[in-house]
Each structure stands twice: as C-alpha cells, then as structure tokens.
C-alpha cells in the first residue's frame, strides 16, 4: 500500500465573552430557560434593526493582534443566506470578503507554522432540540457574538490540530476575549480534511467534519476520516466533497448533505449595518495593553528563569497558576518556587478545572517568603517541604509555623553532638551499616531529624554519621 499523508485546515468558532449579544442588548449568560434571553432583534422579528456591539469589534481585533494578523482598517458585514430553523431571519450576519483580521499565524512546538487566513465576526445560531418528530428551537444562543478563525490547510496530524487548539484556547483566555469552554460550546471547530500520497504536490478532495466540541472527538473523528478516505482511494473509489458529522456513539463520520447546496450562501452586503472602521490609535492602544502572551511567557520561563521546558509548559497552561508563580518567584530562586507549585500545590489541585480556577490555600507572598528563607540558608529543603504542607493545611505564613529557633539553623557543634547520640543509641543500626546494609542509615538520619525537629541538613548529617561509624 502507498503511504499517505493527511492535510487539514481548521475553522474554529470562539464565543466572545461580551456581556450582550452582537446586535442587541440581550444577555449572553449561559444556561437558563429557553427563549428568555431574547428580544425582537435576536428572534428576527420583521422591522427590527441590528446595532453592532462595539466590544465585539474590540475583542475580534485583540484576537487578531494576539495571533499576528493584519487588521483591516475598513471592514463590513454580509448576509449568509440559508434556510434552517436555527436562524430566525433565514440568514446569518457574518463577514464575507472584508473580514476584520487577515494573515496571522500560530507557531507549533515542532517548528511548523499554521497560517491563519482570516478572523471574522458573526452571530451564533439558536439551539435545536429534536423530539417526537418535531424540532424545538431555543434562541438564547442566537445572536451571541462569535469569531471564526480560519486557517490554511497547514495541519499534517491530529496532534498538530490539538496543539493549535490548545494554544488558541490559552491565547484567547489570556487576552480575556473568551473563556473557550469546549463543554459549553464556546469553542468548537470544523475540520477540512483530505489525504494524498506522500510526495504528491496536489491536494486530494476534501471533506468537512462539522462542530467538534471536544479534543477527544476531534482526534477520533480525524483518525477515522483519514482512514476512511485512504481505504476509499485504495479500493478504487473517489472521495466526494461533502460535509460529514462525527457520531460519538458509532465512532464514525457520516454524510450530512451535499456540499453543492450548502456552499450556495448567496452572500451580499448587510444593508442594515454601516461600515466598520478601526483606527490606528485603537490598534496601538489594544496592542499596548495586551498581557504577556503564552508563547512569550514560555520563552521567559525557559530562557530567563531557566526552568525545564516541561515545567514551564505546565505553569503556562494555567494562566492563574502562572500569575501566582510570577508573584511568588520575584527575586528568589524560580526553580524552587516552580517545584513547590508543581509538587505540593498541584497535588492539592488534581483536576484541570481545579488548576484553572485555583483557589490558592496561601497567598503567593507566603510561598515567596518560604523560598527566600531557603535561598538565605535559613531553612533546609526537608523542613521547607513539611512547612509548605503545613502552610497549605492552615493557610498560615512561615512566621506562624516556625519559631526563631527553628530558623536559626544548627551549628556544626550541635549537629555533631546529635550525631554522636544517634550512633550511641542505635547500636543495631550501626552494626547493620558496618555489615554493609546502607539502608540502615535511614534509622540514624531519622533519629537526628527527630532530635533537631527537622532542622538538620540531611546531607551534612549523613557525612558526619559515616565519619563517626568509620
């Protein structure tokens, strides 16, 4: 069999976290009874007129700036016509040939670049519920603002798609334009996918898989569809250009409709909305107050703070954790702080959701103070670790948990005295060590730690004990 490669492009819909819908003052709040976040505008009543939400333009431009897009100073909105009950007007107000943003990029960790063709603004559709031979419609989501981010066919694997989506999600969250919750549908994507023999320069016929709102389904759907197309070509068939749906239950994709009709959206300019103009001053300002983007933060952690790449990536993955780290690591050893966060703190925040919405048991300043004591040689790592656990348990600062005596350290003479006592009081362990059982050293160290309430430096004590035993 010939070797094939998959080629994919992505259309990602991201719901913007504005307070109101794109063309009316109805709330965008999630949940609630059906058709309670609606008015004549967002239910398409005759005679109503849309009025564009200024914040939608701002958020879309911010998204464009964060992905390196060129911002079109002049833009407009168009009607995309199709008849389906999720659209009360029988058209969706979108952008056709003058989107707000064009030509951006997202870099992947394998060195490849995914080119972003465009980012445009549009309104979300309503939700359909199919019951008892009828279709019920809820327009609460109808008119919620979306940006659609379209890429070139630059993906070569499902892993690349996943990384791109994770980066996009993190970037949008960081700049505060969307919460990108896949489970609530505020980030969902369509994948255009084709296959071709390795080495071929031409593209195969592509199919589109619609509306995937989880990474797992996306990966399964892409894997299934790639296999399906290869099998089809290998068995002498041809891929038909069409829209397919991934069925979670069967794990297969199935045809939804012929592309021929679906593509015929008869776009024309939306006559009820005027031209959108974005000024250089606005762009400068939005660029200026852009927070540090995930990729820049990652560079800073690995290059400037010398964190291992995997540790840096884990911190950057959760913006609140990263902010906590930044505060705690000010002026102290960053690796020490990272280790406390990725170790003890992460054990108390086992799920993604807990890390994302982390309610920190202690303020970052407390962790900073602990790290400063370690840096200053006042606290050995063992005692620091147990102290941090106590801080997480009680929410108290170091100063409440350790006495001045604890922090005074142990001078050489005191340590030597304790070690001598350890040897005298543990003849059995000493005999074992002399017999070559290195593990017995643990009993002596345990004695030393208990006697010094953990203040002794384990390394120094071990050296001294070895010397005493001979």
């Amino acid at each position, binding site marked *: 069999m010939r070797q094939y490669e998959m080629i994919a492009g992505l259309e990602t819909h991201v719901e913007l976290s*504005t307070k109101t819908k794109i063309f009316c003052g109805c709330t965008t709040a999630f949940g609630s009874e059906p058709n*309670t976040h*609606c*008015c004549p505008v967002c239910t398409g009543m005759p005679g109503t007129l849309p009025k564009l939400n200024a914040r939608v333009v701002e958020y879309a431009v911010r998204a464009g700036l964060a992905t390196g897009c060129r911002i079109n100073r002049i833009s407009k909105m168009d009607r995309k016509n199709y*008849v389906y009950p999720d659209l009360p007007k029988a058209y969706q107000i979108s952008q056709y040939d003058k989107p707000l943003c064009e030509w951006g990029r997202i870099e992947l960790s394998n060195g490849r670049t995914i080119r972003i063709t465009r980012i445009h603004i549009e309104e979300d559709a309503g939700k359909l519920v*199919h019951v008892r031979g*009828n279709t019920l*419609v809820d*327009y609460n989501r109808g008119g919620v603002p979306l940006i659609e981010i379209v890429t070139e066919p630059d993906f070569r694997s499902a892993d690349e798609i996943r990384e791109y989506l994770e980066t996009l999600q993190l970037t949008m969250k960081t700049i505060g334009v969307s919460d990108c919750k896949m489970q609530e549908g505020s980030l969902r994507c369509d994948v255009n996918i084709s296959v071709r023999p390795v080495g071929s320069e031409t593209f195969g016929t592509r199919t589109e898989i619609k509306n995937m709102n989880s990474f797992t389904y996306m990966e399964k759907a892409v894997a299934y569809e790639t296999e399906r197309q290869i099998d089809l070509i290998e068995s002498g068939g041809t891929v038909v250009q069409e829209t397919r749906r991934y069925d979670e239950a069967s794990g297969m994709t199935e045809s939804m409709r012929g592309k021929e009709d679906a593509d015929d959206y008869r776009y024309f*300019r939306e006559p009820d909305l005027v031209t959108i103009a974005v000024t250089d001053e606005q762009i400068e300002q939005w660029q200026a107050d852009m927070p540090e983007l995930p990729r820049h933060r990652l560079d800073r952690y690995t290059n400037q703070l010398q964190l291992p790449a995997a540790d840096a990536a884990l911190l950057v993955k959760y913006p609140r954790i990263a902010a906590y780290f930044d505060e705690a690591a000010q002026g102290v050893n960053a690796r020490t702080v990272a280790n406390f966060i990725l170790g003890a703190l992460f054990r108390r925040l086992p799920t993604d959701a807990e890390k994302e919405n982390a309610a920190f048991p202690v303020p970052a300043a407390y962790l900073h103070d602990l790290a400063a004591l370690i840096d200053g040689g006042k606290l050995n790592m063992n005692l620091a670790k147990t102290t941090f656990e106590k801080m997480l348990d009680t929410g108290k600062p170091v100063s409440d948990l350790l006495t001045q005596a604890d922090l005074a350290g142990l001078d050489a003479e005191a340590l030597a005295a304790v070690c001598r006592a350890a040897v005298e009081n543990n003849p059995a362990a000493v005999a074992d060590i002399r017999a070559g059982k290195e593990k017995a050293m643990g009993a002596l160290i345990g004695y030393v730690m208990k006697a010094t309430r953990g203040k002794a430096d384990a390394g120094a004590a071990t050296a001294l004990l070895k010397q005493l035993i001979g």
Partner: protein
Amino acid sequence: MITQEEIRKIAKLAKLYVSEEEIGSLTEDMARIIAFADTINAAADTQEPFDSIQSLQNALREDVVRPSYPQEEILRNVNGGEDGYFRTKQSREG
C-alpha cells in the same frame, strides 16, 4: 441571461416550491428584476466604493445589558410555543 434551471435552483435554496407552469413566467420576472438592478449598478459606478463612505461608519452600541422580553411575549406569535420553545417540523440535516 437567466435560465429556467437557475430559477429552479434559487427556488430550492429558498425552500420555495414552484410548479412547472410557473417557471416560465418567474424566469421572465427575474430577468426584468436583474435588468433593473443592472441599471442601478451602472449608475453606482460613479459612486465611491463602500469603504470610503466616511459619513456612514461605526454606528456602534455600548456593551450594556438591557432586559430581554418575557418568554410568553417572545412566543406570542406562535401560540405560546411548546415548553418554552418554538416548534417546527422535524428538520434534521442529512
């Protein structure tokens, strides 16, 4: 020139069901409508393109929530709907 085939396609896209007898006269009507639009297009050539209409830019709204309509008010034209929803005939794609 518009063809009868195009009329059939447009009707299908708009979910309009027209009989074979109507196709001929609809095609003639559509040809007249397009001719009228061509007249406007010819006149519009002297106008500036859309992106320099300075006086018609940025009619924007602040992002401030206004009360939505009560559910029963929204559903009044469809006899109250069903369980708070609009109801239509089954319309599943595919």
